[in-house]
C-alpha cells in the first residue's frame, strides 16, 4: 500500500488539517476505500462546513462543498437525480448531530441510499473548540470552561445507536476510531459497498483526535480516544438483513 491514496489530489498537498488530526486520517482511509472499490469516477463527495470543508479539494473525486448541515440533503438530491452515482456525505458532529440532525434522521428514515461519514472529535473544532453534541460530560471547551454540564448542554449524543432505531432493514451503521486503520477501512468499504449494492442507507461514525482544540499532544490525544471509547462503543451497530 502506498503512503497516499491514489484518489487524493497530489497538487493539494500538504493538506490544511492540523498536525495530528484524526479527521485527516479518516479521509486518508476513505481515499484508500475509494481506490480499492474502484469508484473514483462514480463517486461524488459532498462536504459540510467546519474542518470538513478543508477537504474540498483533497480528492480527485467530483466534490461539492455545501452549507452547514446540508451535505446530507445535497447528496440525497443528487442520488435521487442520478441513481448510479455513489454519493458520500462527509461531516462533523455539528453538521450531523446539531444543525444537520433533522436531515440525517430523515435520510435514514427514508433509507436514502447514500453513505454518511461523520467525524466525532467531541468539539466544534474549526471555530476554536466549542461544546458539540458529542462532547463528554465534564470535558472542557470554550463554551463550557468548567466542563460540560448536563443541565446546560444535555447528554452526549449516541448517533449510530439513535439511527439504528429508525433504520430500514438494508441499512449499515457502524462506529470506529481513526487510529484503527484496518477496522476503519473495513467499515468504510462495507458502508460504500452497501450503497453500491443498492441495499440501503449507510453510516459510519469515526472517533477522531483533535490535538489542537483538546490541547493535547499526540500521546495524550490517543489516550483521550480511549476515554471516548468508554462512552461511544465501537463496532457494527447495525448490519443489513440478509447479509452473507
Amino acid at each position, binding site marked *: *500500500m*502506498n*503512503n*497516499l*491514496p491514489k484518489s*487524493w489530489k497530489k497538487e493539494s*498537498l*500538504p*493538506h*490544511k*488539517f*492540523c*498536525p*495530528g*488530526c*484524526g*479527521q*485527516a*486520517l479518516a479521509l*486518508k482511509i476513505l481515499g484508500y476505500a475509494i481506490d480499492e472499490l474502484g469508484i473514483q469516477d462514480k463517486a461524488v463527495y459532498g462536504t459540510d462546513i467546519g*474542518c470538513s*470543508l*478543508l477537504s474540498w479539494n483533497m480528492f480527485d473525486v467530483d466534490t461539492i462543498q455545501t452549507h452547514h448541515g446540508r451535505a446530507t440533503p445535497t447528496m440525497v438530491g443528487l442520488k435521487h437525480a442520478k441513481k448510479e452515482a455513489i454519493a458520500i456525505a462527509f461531516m462533523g458532529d455539528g453538521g450531523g448531530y446539531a444543525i444537520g440532525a433533522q436531515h440525517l434522521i430523515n435520510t435514514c428514515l427514508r433509507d436514502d441510499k447514500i453513505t454518511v461519514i461523520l467525524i466525532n472529535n467531541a468539539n466544534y*473544532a*474549526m471555530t*476554536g473548540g466549542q461544546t458539540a453534541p458529542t462532547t463528554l460530560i465534564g470535558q472542557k471547551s470554550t463554551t463550557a470552561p468548567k466542563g460540560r454540564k448536563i443541565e446546560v448542554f444535555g447528554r452526549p449524543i449516541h448517533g449510530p445507536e439513535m439511527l439504528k432505531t429508525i433504520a430500514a432493514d438494508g441499512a449499515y451503521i457502524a462506529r470506529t476510531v481513526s*487510529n484503527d*486503520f484496518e477496522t476503519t477501512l473495513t467499515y468504510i468499504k462495507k458502508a460504500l459497498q452497501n450503497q453500491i449494492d443498492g441495499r440501503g442507507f449507510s453510516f459510519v461514525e469515526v472517533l477522531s483526535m483533535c*490535538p*489542537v*482544540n483538546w490541547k493535547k*499532544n*499526540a*500521546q495524550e490525544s*490517543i489516550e483521550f480516544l480511549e476515554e471516548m471509547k468508554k462512552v461511544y462503543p465501537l463496532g457494527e451497530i447495525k448490519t443489513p438483513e440478509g447479509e452473507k
Partner: protein
Amino acid sequence: MKRILLAGEGGQGVQSIAEILARAANEQGKETTYIPNFGVEQRGGVSLAYLQIDEKPIGYPKFAEADIIIAMCNRAIEAIKKFVQDETLFIYDSSFIADDKIKTLHGLVKKYLNIPAKQIAQKELSIKVANILFLGVLAHELGNLTSEQIKIAMNNQFKSHPEFKEMNEKAFDIGLNYAKERPNQEFIGSQPTEIQKLFEDETKAWERFPEYCKGCGLCLISCPQKAITFSDELNFLGTNLPKVDLNKCIACGNCQKICPDGAIKVTKKQ
C-alpha cells in the same frame, strides 16, 4: 505612529506576539489597535496580524503600508510584499526562510534585520519559543515601549503555562540583544539543505516526506519497537521531522498507516 505587520504560519504564535504588544502598549498609556487576519484553517495557512501603536487614537485597524514587518515563514513572503515601502524595516527568520524567497525582496526592501530565530531557539532553548525571539527584537525596535512592560504582558499571556516562563524570558532577552548587536547582517535566507529522506537496508526501506510532515508525533507513539524519534531536521512547517532507527524497525507499517499526512512510506523488500 507605528504600523507593524506580523506574518507567520498559523500556529507559529504570530497572534500571541501581536496581542502581547497591544496589551503592553495599552498598559503604558499608548493608543493601540490589533486585528488578526486569517483564513479558515485552525493551523497552517498564512496568519497575519495588523498592529498599530500611537500617541493619538487610531481609527481603522488595517493599513496598506507597514513601518515594521515580521516574517516568520516562507509563505509569508508573498503576502507581505505589498506592504513594503522605502522606510519599512523587514525583520525575518533567516534560518527558516529560504534564500531564494529573500532574493525576491532584493530591490524592494531597503532596511532589514536578519535573525536566525528557529536555529537559535532549537539550539539554546526549544523550537517552540522561536516566536518569542521576535518579541525581544520588537521590544528593541519599538523605542517607546519598555522591555519590562512587554515582559509583564508576555508572562500574563502565557500564565496558564508557568513552566515556560523562564524559557520565554530567556528567548525574549536573546532577541533583544540580537537586535542591539545585529551580528551577521547579510540579506540572505537559508540555503536548501539536503535532508535525508530515505533510510534503507537490505530488508526494508523507510521514507519520510518533509514537504508533507507536520511533526505531530503520531508515528513515534504508534511504533511498537520505539524505533522512531524526532530528529533535528525541520519539515516545511518548521517543526521536527521524525527519523527511524533501522536496527529496531520491523517494517510493520504502523507509522505509515497512522500518519494523517501520508508523510511516511514503509516498504518491505523481498
